[in-house]
């Protein structure tokens, strides 16, 4: 009798484990559904894309925000919806979307993939699969592998746009950028190193859009400027509702050959109008015509690098002593050529100490109180 009971319990146990394994397999296979036959779709759409958009949406941290009616929204998910609309609307573009998600487990023990990938070509979804992100250093290797698997052959002839959505990308340190992997680091240099490989034969992206806080710093523009002709970024805080992407929906109409700067202005103006309508905090969007900013960046590079070196050495554990401010407030950065190549759309916060600040140079720098440093 006891034997029979033990046997039954054992069978139930085996059945449960079997069910877990089955669910796990089912779950992971669901994540890799080829949407359409790749070659068939390419035959049906014989014209090669003329625009290539690579979009990375970081979602592995707190990206919750509230709209003015009090609805709780998730910035990364809202962005994915917007960029998918962009991908569907453009009949002459290929769009790579990488959604970097938090780590999670299925049935407590089975880790699920922490990245979602979408590939659209000529308005159609060609592939949608889950993938494993970099587990240690983060230099976009898994994303690059997917990019290389699907990208069109005529890379060098396409107009290339890079989009990044996430929190401020650190200029040094970089631990804790991913909530799921607190030890892993991600910095502006890591992003730049990873992005080089997405260029193929091309020298630079035609445009990069950094939808993050404090993207408009001399270091960030210098690093990413090596890979992009034009950069749109916010030098100050950027609310999580991010830049509006509507102008990207009709690239054929709005981004004509040789018209990159006017497109960038149109994009920035639209994003600025949308943000100022809904946000009470400050709004700052700058367009950097990278070649024209070089002279200023060359002049201040040494000073900025020294500041960063000091920050690395002294302030890693005391972040609040270090603050960011308009570079124009610091005499060593206030140079005649600082506005060259920069178009800034700025509105101060409606409340707070800086509500009467009327202008922003478009460059954000670090400042810290040396006296406090000595005390510590």
């Amino acid at each position, binding site marked *: 009798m006891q034997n029979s009971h033990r046997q*039954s*319990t054992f069978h*139930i146990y085996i*059945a*449960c484990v079997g069910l*877990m394994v089955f*669910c796990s397999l089912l779950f992971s296979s669901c994540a890799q559904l080829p949407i359409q036959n790749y070659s068939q779709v390419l035959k049906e759409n014989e014209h090669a894309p003329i625009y290539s958009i690579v979009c990375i949406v970081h979602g592995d*941290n*707190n990206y*919750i*925000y*509230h709209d*003015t009616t*009090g609805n*709780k929204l998730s910035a990364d998910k809202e962005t994915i919806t917007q960029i998918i609309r962009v991908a569907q609307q453009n009949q002459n573009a290929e769009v790579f979307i990488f959604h970097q998600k938090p780590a*999670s487990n*299925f*049935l*407590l023990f089975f880790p699920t993939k922490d990245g979602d990938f979408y590939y659209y070509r000529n308005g159609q979804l060609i592939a949608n699969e889950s993938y494993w992100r970099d587990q240690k250093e983060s230099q976009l290797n898994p994303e690059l592998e997917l990019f290389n698997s699907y990208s069109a052959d005529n890379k060098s002839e396409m107009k290339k746009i890079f989009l990044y959505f996430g*929190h*401020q990308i650190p200029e040094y340190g970089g631990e*804790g950028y991913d*909530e799921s992997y607190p030890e892993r680091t991600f910095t502006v240099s890591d992003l730049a190193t990873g992005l080089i490989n997405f260029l193929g034969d091309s020298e630079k992206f035609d445009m990069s859009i950094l939808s993050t*806080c404090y993207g408009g710093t001399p270091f960030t523009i210098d690093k990413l400027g090596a890979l992009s002709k034009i950069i749109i970024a916010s030098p100050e*805080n950027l*609310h*999580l509702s991010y830049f509006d992407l509507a102008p990207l929906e009709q690239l054929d109409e709005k981004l004509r050959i040789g018209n990159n700067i006017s497109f960038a202005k149109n994009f920035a103006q639209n994003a600025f109008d949308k943000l100022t309508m809904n*946000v*009470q*905090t400050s709004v700052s969007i700058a367009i950097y015509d990278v070649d024209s900013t070089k002279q200023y960046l060359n002049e201040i590079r040494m000073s900025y690098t020294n500041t960063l070196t000091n920050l690395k050495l002294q302030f890693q*554990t*005391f*972040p*609040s*002593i270090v603050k960011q401010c308009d570079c124009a407030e610091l005499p060593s950065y206030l140079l005649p050529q600082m506005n060259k190549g920069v178009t800034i759309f700025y509105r101060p*916060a*409606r*409340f*707070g*100490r800086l509500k009467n600040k009327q202008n922003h140079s478009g460059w954000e720098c670090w400042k810290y109180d040396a006296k406090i440093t000595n005390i510590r």
Partner: protein
Amino acid sequence: MKTRIFVGFIVMMFVFVTPLSANGKVDIQKYFNDTANKVKATENAAEKREILNESFQNLSKALEKVENMGLVSNENRDVFDQFKNNLQEKQDELAGNNGYERIPDSQLNNFSNYVVQDMEQALSISLVALLLIIILVILLI
């Protein structure tokens, strides 16, 4: 018996699989969002002011309590102080203290949105200490 074990197992599976997404940062955001909703729901400016003031004071008390209990580590001290100063600035601005112009009655709804948005930006960075604070905030309210 077998059925019970099996059903129990299935229930456990779904309970454990439910993502535990709530955390301190999200709760703090919810706290300010609820305050803004209450402010916007009332027509009376004095009541709006009272709701905002009470919300700031509750949180200030919670911060003090955390500090007095010695729960703020040296590592988190600056981030904690920064958050506390930020909160104090908002209280000052609401009341018109410390060089601030008092927020006009007509601007209280916008100010409540500003507080939500500014805190969302401030909380974007990792503030470990706030996970503790939120527990106390919940206990106080």
